[in-house]
């Protein structure tokens, strides 16, 4: 399910996009599925519908979603590839973070502990 | 937009109005208790209670309803609940005021409606003075519904103050105070009317009261709305706005009748003798001592506005009590000082007695060889109230016989030496009246009149009412006037005289009002009354019906109706407007004499009339010759 973290510094529309891409990458949303409706999504996430609308718009611009006239937005055919591409940035970011951590003086054990904790949170 | 709000306000404020209505209904059966305790007729007790409601209860109800509505409108809970509605504070206040006024008017309708019902026979008191909207019980203070514009002023004032203070009780009391200025102005206006009643042709009291109250209400509304808006919107109030609200009443009053007030004050301050406003003839209900009988129509007592008392006859004026320099306080108690000389008569020894009372005291005076001495004075209002109460309860002047007791303080005082038993309660006064030997009952299934001492008269038909009757007085002798129904179905009156005669007066028809009001007596015992169609029916001193005198041919430019002042040998003398007219036995005008004027009033004596004018007292005999007796206040 789409989620946002209110404590995260990442802008909300970015979080929504990332979450949507994550669903597509996992295969929960397949090409051809309709994109989530703005209103219900906004209500469940407790965010401004404009924010959701903006995220959807940007995903359309990125090509992850496509609009069909009169029928709204749908997951595009190329979505899977694009989502995974998007994930490469996340991978890069994670790598960089680990490098920073090591440089900063964290031991491997400490790093592992953090990773384990983060994974637990997701589950 | 207003109706849903109005419904809401009515719903919120209905409790105060409902409690007034409930209180009203509870007091009505109390009439029964009062009647049982005091012996008063139930209907009379009911009249008293209704009068109390009209004069006191409704103004208090106005304060209650107004103040509770105002306090509620000002409460923070009201504001919290209603502020968010898209209605301005001024409109909300207006609706609250309107609801309060509507609720009060419904209570007023209830009270006045019930009062009206009581005189249409529902409670069997057919002669109720409430039918004239003048309460007999309360000394003629008008109980007209029109008076209750003043109560609306109280409603608005209480609402306003309760709203601004935010407290119901305080607001109500202060609102009553705020309306005092209006009420005082109305009362002053009424006092003026009483003073000038006989010389004014118009009755300005009601227009005065209505316009006063109207302006006072408008002034209060002018204070309400600006202050409501300010208060709700967190701004400071403008207390100076109150001043127009306080002053509106007196200012309007002054501008309407102020010149009369100043004239009165002028009068009092002047060294010139003041005008007399009324006088008292030798009492018709006094003991019929020979001296009294002889004095009837020969002497008359005058009382001036400044406390002077004079004895007037065709021979001149004789001062008994000197005038005093009157202060402003006397001006206020003036009407009562002026209007009430009472119970004057000559005793067996020929000495003159009279009672004199004002708002504050009751006095008994005796005149010995032209010198008047005050023998007794009451303290406080108490005696006055009792004496008046007793008089009212007994409807008319009860008879005084040589043996019987009477209500009159003076008579008791004289009769029993100096130890006059004081009338301490209504029951005693009533008892006295009931025990009066002159009270007569309708008996024999409505066909005869019977008196306690055994004297009875057979009526020519069936009496219209079973009420006991007090006699009418003419020439020092009692006469009973009993309305009855003739065999042809028409109404007539039977005159039952002391000598046993029963005279039918078929043209003087009875109505539901008190019979005594319809008959006028001349000093020699002649009776007359106005018949429909511009004529006067005359009953001569022996009790014989002397026919009708049609006065319309003699009208000319004159207004109203003439007074019969004398009859002699078939000729009649009339006073009509400013003239003394002599009408011959054939109904034609024999002589016209212009009377001195402009006059305050005129009194009929045996040998002529005494006319009280601006320039003094004049005696005019039956030939029209006028003689100036002198000025009052000398």
């Amino acid at each position, binding site marked *: 399910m789409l989620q946002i973290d209110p404590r995260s*510094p990442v802008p909300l529309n970015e979080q929504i996009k990332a979450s949507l891409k994550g669903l597509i990458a996992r295969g929960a949303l397949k090409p051809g599925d309709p994109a989530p409706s703005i209103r219900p999504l906004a209500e469940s996430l407790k965010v401004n519908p404009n924010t959701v609308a903006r995220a959807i718009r940007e995903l359309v611009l990125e090509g992850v979603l496509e609009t069909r006239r009169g029928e709204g937005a749908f997951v595009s055919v190329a979505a899977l590839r694009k989502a995974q591409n998007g994930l490469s940035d996340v991978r890069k970011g994670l790598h960089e973070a680990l490098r920073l951590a090591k440089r900063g003086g964290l031991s491997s054990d400490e790093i592992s502990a953090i990773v384990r904790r983060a994974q637990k949170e997701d589950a | 937009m207003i109706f849903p709000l109005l419904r809401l306000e009515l719903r919120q404020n209905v409790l105060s109005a409902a409690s007034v209505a409930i209180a009203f209904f509870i007091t009505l059966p109390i009439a029964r208790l009062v009647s049982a305790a005091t012996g008063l007729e139930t209907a009379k007790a009911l009249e008293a209670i209704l009068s109390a409601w009209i004069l006191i209860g409704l103004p208090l109800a106005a304060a209650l309803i107004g103040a509770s509505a105002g306090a509620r409108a000002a409460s923070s809970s009201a504001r919290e609940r209603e502020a*968010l509605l898209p209605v301005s504070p001024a409109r909300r206040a207006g609706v609250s005021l309107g609801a309060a006024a509507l609720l009060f008017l419904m209570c007023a309708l209830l009270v006045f409606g019930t009062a009206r019902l009581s005189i249409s026979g529902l409670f069997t008191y057919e002669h109720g003075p409430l039918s004239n909207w003048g309460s007999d019980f309360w000394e003629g203070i008008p109980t007209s519904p029109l008076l209750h514009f003043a109560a609306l002023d109280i409603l608005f004032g209480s609402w306003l103050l309760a709203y601004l203070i935010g407290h119901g009780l305080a607001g109500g009391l202060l609102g009553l105070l705020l309306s005092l200025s209006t009420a005082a102005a109305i009362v002053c206006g009424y006092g003026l009317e009483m003073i000038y009643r006989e010389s004014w042709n118009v009755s300005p009291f009601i227009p005065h009261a209505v316009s006063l109250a109207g302006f006072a209400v408008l002034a209060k509304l002018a204070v309400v709305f600006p202050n409501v808006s300010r208060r709700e919107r967190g701004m400071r109030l403008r207390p100076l706005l109150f001043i127009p609200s306080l002053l509106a009443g007196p200012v309007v009053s002054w501008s309407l009748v102020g010149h009369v007030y100043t004239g009165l004050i002028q009068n009092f301050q002047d060294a010139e003798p003041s005008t007399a406003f009324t006088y008292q003839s030798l009492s018709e209900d006094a003991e019929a001592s020979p001296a009294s009988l002889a004095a009837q129509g020969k002497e008359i007592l005058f009382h001036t506005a400044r406390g002077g008392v004079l004895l007037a006859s065709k021979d001149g004026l004789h001062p008994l009590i000197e005038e005093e320099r009157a202060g402003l306080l006397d001006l206020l108690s003036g009407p009562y000082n002026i209007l009430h000389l009472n119970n004057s008569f000559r005793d067996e020894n020929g000495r003159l007695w009279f009672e004199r009372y004002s708002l504050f005291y009751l006095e008994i005076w005796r005149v010995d060889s032209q010198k008047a001495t005050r023998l007794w004075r009451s303290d406080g209002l108490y005696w006055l109230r009792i004496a008046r109460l007793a008089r009212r309860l007994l409807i008319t002047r009860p008879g005084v016989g040589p043996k019987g007791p009477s209500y009159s303080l003076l008579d008791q005082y004289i009769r029993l030496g100096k130890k006059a038993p004081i009338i301490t309660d209504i029951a005693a006064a009533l008892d006295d009246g009931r025990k009066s030997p002159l009270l007569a009952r309708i008996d024999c299934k409505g066909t005869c009149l019977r008196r306690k001492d055994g004297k009875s008269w057979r009526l020519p038909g069936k009496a219209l009412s079973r009420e006991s009757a007090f006699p009418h007085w003419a020439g020092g002798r009692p006469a009973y006037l009993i309305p009855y129904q003739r065999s042809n179905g028409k109404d007539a009156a039977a005159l039952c005289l002391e000598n046993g005669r029963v005279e039918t007066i078929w043209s003087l028809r009875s109505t539901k009002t008190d019979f005594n009001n319809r008959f006028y007596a001349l000093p020699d015992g002649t009776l007359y009354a106005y018949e429909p169609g511009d004529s006067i029916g005359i009953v001569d001193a022996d009790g014989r019906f002397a026919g009708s005198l049609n006065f319309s041919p003699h009208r000319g430019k004159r207004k109203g109706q003439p007074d019969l002042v004398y009859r002699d040998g078939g000729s009649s003398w009339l006073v009509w407007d400013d003239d003394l007219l002599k009408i011959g036995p054939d109904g034609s005008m024999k002589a016209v004499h212009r009377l001195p004027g402009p006059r305050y009033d005129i009194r009929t004596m045996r040998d002529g009339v005494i006319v009280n004018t601006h320039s003094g007292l004049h005696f005019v005999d039956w030939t029209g010759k006028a003689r100036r007796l002198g000025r009052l206040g000398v």
Partner: protein
Amino acid sequence: MNALSFSGIVKSFGARRVLDGAAGHAKAGRVVGLLGRNGEGKTTLLKILLDLLEPEAGQVEVLGLRPDGSGKIRQHVGYVPEKPAFHPFMTAGEVLSLRARLFERWDAGRAESLCRRLGLDLTTQIASASKGTLGKLAWVCATAHDPALLLLDEPTSGLDVLVREEVLSGLVAELGEEGKTVLVTSHRMDEFAGLLDEVWVMAQGRLAGCWPVEELREQACVVSGRPKEGSSMPEISQAVALPQEGPLRAWAILDRRVKERLLGSNVLESIQVESLPLERAFTCLLTLYGGQIQ
């Protein structure tokens, strides 16, 4: 086009000056959070916008109208007060039908569907209604006439979790419509954080600061470190100094430039930068402008 604007607002209650030259404006469609400590004038400002209070000085314009005391503005504004109050002898249904007759744009169908959605029983007597019921009723009263401006004063305080959820969903639903402007005050502003475009901070009787929320979300952080030997601590305005932990010092910083300035001043070592969640960022805003608590 401004949905509301005000300037130079002065309002005192007795001797206390609650608003002292407050000024601000909001464009149509914006969602604004009003932050401020108790007594800083938030409710007073809202009441002035609602034409319930008259300021001693200043100009106010709401939806193109000037408040004039007549209450006409309230036809177009919805207000949920902190403590909703209704006549105790009425039922919820009567409360709504009274308003239906007074508000020109009252939509009975919308009101009905709102009641259904919120689970509001129209036959409930106000006198015996729970806080949650009153909150729901207040919500319906504030929105059924389709106002272009919503003013919400602590709309979720005192309500249980479920009702709060419903109110929030309801608010989001309102925002779906074009151009609705919202001004909301809350002590739990983080609840609304997802909806806000900007926050206003009220302090010292005026609008002391105006912060776009998304920027705040990205830029709010805590910078901690150990002051270098021999260096003097720079004066950092626009940051809230946090309690010292031994030799370590830390600051809550809301603006990226301030953070960069601090880092660039090179007076700290072993620097750690953590993002500051919005909830804490709002508290810092209050401290920054109010300057009393830590």
